[in-house]
């Protein structure tokens, strides 16, 4: 079965076709980063206006590029939440009505379930059960995944998400958006011994995160030092280390608590190279297996939605004609 996947929850228009017979996926992405750059953040109305212009041409190109006719598509999946309501509605309206016209089943997908399942598209996918660390622009969550749809929230951020922290720190250091890649790059020039930043909420037990204090710490450090290139790089290094180390400490705890031997990391921040280095160390040390998506499937994309949609459709689920979107949607409510 081939499933067309559509992602429009925020500032990327993503489309993909997942082919279950080959376990292969092909995708196209249009990023709105430049559109929003001059406003310092995503402008929801502009995002929706751009999605409705770009989505259908992308779908057309995807079919043409792969020499596929509509008859060869067995179902359509689109992100139904969480995300920006207007942006979600564009993908859902086009996806649901196209499925009606093609007379194939449709399914609204949870964006974070999409992220969570993205590693399944790799040649050596994880097997259930596992612990998942979802680290993206809007979420930082540790989840126990027993099987598809059986998600227990172990911990999450009580304020900023990890990706959001990268973005905010980048902004206050005068780096561009998105902040994650910019910080990472600059951190390579940083002196590891100059600053040590706190690891928030690691002294207390529990699996929740907090990143807003770390951001304030960065701001104060930046304000009280000579603002030269080296200092900027040194701060980037210390911030990245502190953020990643905090994530590692909690992953370690979650694995211990659940006794599980498999860890999955997904979402935009999982593209981070240093994070992956630390994970490899952790895996060796704890004798656990670690899985993550290929870098292009860490951030938003249509492939993860196509795959998650396929899994749900295969299980016999589908959305009726009265489609709806869920701007806020707790993943542990899925079944």
């Amino acid at each position: 079965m081939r499933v067309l996947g559509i992602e429009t929850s925020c500032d990327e228009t993503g489309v993909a076709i997942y082919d279950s017979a080959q376990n292969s996926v092909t995708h196209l992405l249009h990023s709105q980063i430049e559109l929003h750059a001059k406003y310092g953040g995503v402008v929801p109305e502009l995002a929706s206006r751009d999605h409705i212009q770009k989505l259908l041409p992308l779908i057309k190109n995807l079919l043409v590029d792969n020499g596929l006719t509509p008859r060869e598509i067995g179902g359509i999946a689109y992100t139904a939440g969480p995300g920006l309501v207007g942006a979600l509605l564009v993908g859902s309206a086009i996806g649901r009505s196209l499925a009606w016209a093609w007379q194939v089943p449709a399914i609204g997908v949870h964006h974070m379930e999409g992220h969570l399942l993205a590693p399944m598209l790799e040649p050596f996918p994880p097997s259930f059960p596992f612990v998942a660390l979802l680290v993206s622009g809007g979420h930082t969550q540790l989840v126990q995944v027993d099987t598809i749809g059986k998600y227990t929230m172990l911990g999450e951020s009580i304020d900023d998400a990890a990706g959001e922290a990268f973005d905010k720190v980048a902004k206050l250091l005068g780096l561009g958006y998105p902040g994650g890649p910019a910080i990472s790059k600059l951190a390579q020039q940083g002196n590891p011994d100059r600053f040590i930043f706190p690891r928030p909420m690691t002294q207390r037990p529990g699996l929740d995160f907090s990143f807003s204090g770390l951001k304030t710490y960065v701001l104060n450090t930046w304000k009280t030092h000579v603002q030269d290139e080296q200092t900027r790089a040194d701060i980037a290094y210390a911030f990245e280390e502190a953020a990643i180390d905090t994530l590692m400490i909690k992953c370690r705890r979650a694995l211990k608590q659940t006794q599980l031997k498999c860890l999955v990391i997904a979402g935009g921040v999982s593209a981070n190279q240093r994070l992956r280095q630390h994970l490899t160390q952790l895996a060796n040390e704890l004798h656990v297996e670690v899985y993550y998506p290929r870098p292009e499937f860490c951030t938003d994309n249509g492939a993860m939605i196509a795959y998650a949609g396929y899994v749900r459709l295969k299980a016999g689920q589908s959305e009726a004609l009265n489609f709806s979107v869920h701007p806020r949607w707790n993943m542990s409510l899925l079944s």
Partner: protein
Amino acid sequence: MNLLALDTSTEVCSCALYVSGEASSQHEIAPRQHAELILPMINNLLAEASLSPKQLDGIAFGKGPGSFTGLRIACGVVQGIAFGLDRPIIPISSLATLAQLAYIEFEWPHVAAAIDARMQEVYWGCYALDENHLMQLQEREQVCKPQAAMLPFSATWAGIGSGWQTYHEILSTTVGNMPIQQEKYPLASAMLPLAIDAFEKGQIVAPENALPTYLRNNVVQV
């Protein structure tokens, strides 16, 4: 000729079907429920007419002006349907639909259609009846302060739409007193005659080129 028409530019969700001379339609006043309602409505209309989607020749939609989200729901739905069926789209102004409704229901030949645009503004368009009983735009549609609304020429005008409700006093002072119908919405049934005419004249677009006409384009608050 078989055409489907839909409009979700205001609080009302409506769709209409034209099947070789016979028209049928449905609508519901349901703010923020257009996504849930529109496809079941379309499906019902087709089922009642025993028409399969593939028998449609074109799909018309209310391109705006109106609620941004509503415009994109209609636009997304028609893009999906039209692309899926490989049919063209017929974009129709929601103000034109309102004006056509005014003619159908009240036989007014000169109509100032106004939709509340929030932020102390109104979507405004003046229409006059042509010899084929179709409303034609006079000058241009715009989003403006009600104080800036203007009639294109002197005639016996009448007003229709939610803009006349919100800004009744200001509009009456600006353009003069006239008969008005405030609680009227662009209904797909009234869009049909305009859509049929446009389709026959080849005023159609490919699915990916059917986009909303927002009129308001400064949407970033800084």
